C-alpha cells in the first residue's frame, strides 16, 4: 500500500489547529461579551467613582476621551479572544505533532482532546486557583510586573504538573488496575502543583470595599471564557482531524 503522501504534513495539522482556535476564540468572545461584559462595566463604574474622589494614580483610562472608547474595547474583546484562540490552537496542533510519535492513543481526535484538556487544567485552572483574574479597579499597579511574571511561571508549572501526572500514570505498569494508575497521575500532578503554590508568592490586593458578589461573578465569567475556548479548541480540532483522516482513508481505499 503506497503510504507516502497520505500522512498529514505539519502544515496540514497546523492549519486545522489555527482554524479550530480562531472559531473557538470567537465562541469564547461571544460568551465573554454576554456573560462577562456586564461585570466589567460594573467594575469600571466603581473604578471611575474612586478616581473622582482621589487623584489618578496611573492605570487605564476609561472615560470618553480615552485612546480607545468603551465601545471599542467591547469590540476589541472579540479581536483579543480570536487572536489568542488562534495562537493557542496553533500551539496545540504543534504539540500534537511533536507528541504524536510517542503518544499512546491511536485515535487522532482522542489525543487532541486529551491535549486540550491538559492545557485547560495546567494553563488555566492551576493558575486560576492561585492567581484568580481581577476586574478593573482591583489590583495594585505597582505590582503588575511581579504578578505578570509569577502568573506566567505558574502557567508553565501547571503544564509541568500535567506532564508529571501523565508520567505518574505511565510509571505504573499497564497491568496495574486503573485506579492505581489514576492515583499515580493525581499524585504526580498534585506534587508539582503543591510545590508551585507554596513557593510562588501570594497577592491580596482586593480593596476591602469592593463588592464580593461582583468579584465572584467576574472571576466565574473569566474562567468560563477560558473553558469555552479550550473546550472549543479540543472539540473542533478533533473533528477536523477526524475529517482529515476519514478523507485520507477514503482515498486509500478508493
Amino acid at each position, binding site marked *: 500500500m503506497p503510504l507516502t503522501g497520505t500522512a498529514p*504534513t505539519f502544515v496540514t495539522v497546523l492549519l486545522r489547529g489555527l482554524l479550530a482556535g480562531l472559531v473557538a476564540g470567537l465562541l469564547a468572545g461571544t460568551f465573554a461579551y454576554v456573560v462577562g461584559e456586564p461585570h466589567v462595566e460594573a467594575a469600571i463604574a466603581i473604578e471611575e467613582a474612586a478616581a473622582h474622589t482621589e487623584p489618578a494614580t496611573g492605570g487605564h483610562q476609561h472615560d470618553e476621551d480615552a*485612546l480607545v472608547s468603551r465601545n471599542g*474595547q467591547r469590540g476589541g474583546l472579540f479581536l*483579543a479572544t480570536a487572536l*489568542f484562540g488562534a495562537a493557542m490552537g496553533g500551539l496545540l496542533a504543534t504539540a500534537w505533532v*511533536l507528541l504524536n510519535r510517542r503518544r499512546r492513543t491511536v485515535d487522532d481526535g482522542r489525543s487532541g482532546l486529551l491535549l486540550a484538556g491538559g492545557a485547560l487544567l495546567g494553563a488555566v485552572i492551576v493558575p486560576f486557583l492561585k492567581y484568580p483574574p481581577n476586574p*478593573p479597579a482591583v489590583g495594585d499597579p505597582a505590582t503588575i510586573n511581579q504578578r505578570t511574571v509569577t502568573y506566567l511561571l505558574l502557567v508553565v508549572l501547571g503544564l509541568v504538573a500535567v506532564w508529571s501526572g501523565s508520567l505518574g500514570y505511565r510509571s505504573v505498569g499497564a497491568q496495574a488496575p486503573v485506579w492505581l494508575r489514576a492515583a499515580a497521575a493525581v499524585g504526580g500532578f498534585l506534587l508539582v502543583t503543591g510545590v508551585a503554590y507554596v513557593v510562588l508568592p501570594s497577592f491580596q490586593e482586593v480593596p476591602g470595599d469592593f463588592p464580593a458578589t461582583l468579584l465572584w461573578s467576574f472571576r466565574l465569567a473569566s474562567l468560563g*471564557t477560558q473553558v469555552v475556548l479550550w473546550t472549543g479548541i479540543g472539540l473542533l480540532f478533533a473533528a477536523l482531524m477526524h475529517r482529515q483522516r476519514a478523507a485520507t482513508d477514503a482515498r486509500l481505499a478508493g
Partner: protein
Amino acid sequence: MSSSTSSQPLVHPAAPTRLLWTVLATVAVLTLLAYLVAFDQGAVSRSGTYLHELMHDGRHLLGVPCH
C-alpha cells in the same frame, strides 16, 4: 505502537531538520501573537498603547493580570 486501520506515520518522517525549523518558527510566531494580545504595552507592536487598550476587556476576561 498498536496498529489500527490507519497506522501509517502521522507526519512525514522525511526532512526532520526542516520540520524542526518549521516547528520552531511556528512556535515563535504563535508565542509572539499570544504575547501581543496578553501582555504587550506597545514595546513590541510599536502601536503605543493602542492595541493594549483595544484588547483591554479581552485581557481581563481571559484572566491575564492587567493592572
